[in-house]
């Protein structure tokens, strides 16, 4: 299937700084994307999603940007906190024979330092 990849495997930021996590996708037909956060010992949790008819979507302290021209997705976290330390995955909707499933990237580990 199509690949979803991340530019950096690890990211270290200071508490209070803004974080930017990047993701590249290769399937130009992809039209729905999700960012998940996975804390140690837990399953991935939904953070924010975006549809291809949008180029920006904001949540609480998080913003997702979508650039369809270069097939790039980013997650911005404002005023990063220690509780933001986790692995972040981008995922794209993948068309299968009988429906749809999410195709995940390899993940970026975010470490917030005091």
């Amino acid at each position, binding site marked *: 299937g199509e690949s979803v990849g991340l530019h950096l495997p690890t990211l270290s930021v200071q508490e209070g700084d803004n974080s930017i996590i990047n993701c590249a996708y290769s399937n130009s037909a992809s*039209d729905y994307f999700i960012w998940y956060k996975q804390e140690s010992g837990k*399953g991935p949790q939904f953070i924010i999603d975006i549809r291809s008819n949008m180029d920006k979507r904001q949540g609480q302290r998080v913003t997702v940007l979508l650039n369809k021209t270069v097939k790039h997705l980013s997650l911005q976290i404002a005023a990063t906190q220690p509780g933001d330390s986790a692995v972040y995955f981008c995922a794209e909707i*993948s068309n299968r024979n*009988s429906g749809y499933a*999410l195709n995940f990237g*390899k993940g970026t580990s975010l470490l917030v330092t005091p």
Partner: protein
Amino acid sequence: DVKVTQSSRYLVKRTGEKVFLECVQDMDHENMFWYRQDPGLGLRLIYFSYDVKMKEKGDIPEGYSVSREKKERFSLILESASTNQTSMYLCASSLSQGRDTEAFFGQGTRLTVV
């Protein structure tokens, strides 16, 4: 809140054993998924199901099978466990077959095959 429950957090099995991983969701979701998560590889789709008694292979189905006899329960079966199946296994569910649908994850089962 949606709850996806995996029956075991940790399992240790011997090579050649038949292994059952159980997953139950309590929100009447039609879709259920099994992923495995390995360091540096992200989440990879093993199998999924869009209805009772219905299943479709994901990207890495070899060595696995699944069973969905009831809507709320989706089982992953390792017919003859091998050491390369040592991994974190994540179950997920989602509401509909629509494209714009997030998946909710369980806590994961860390399986070690010795």
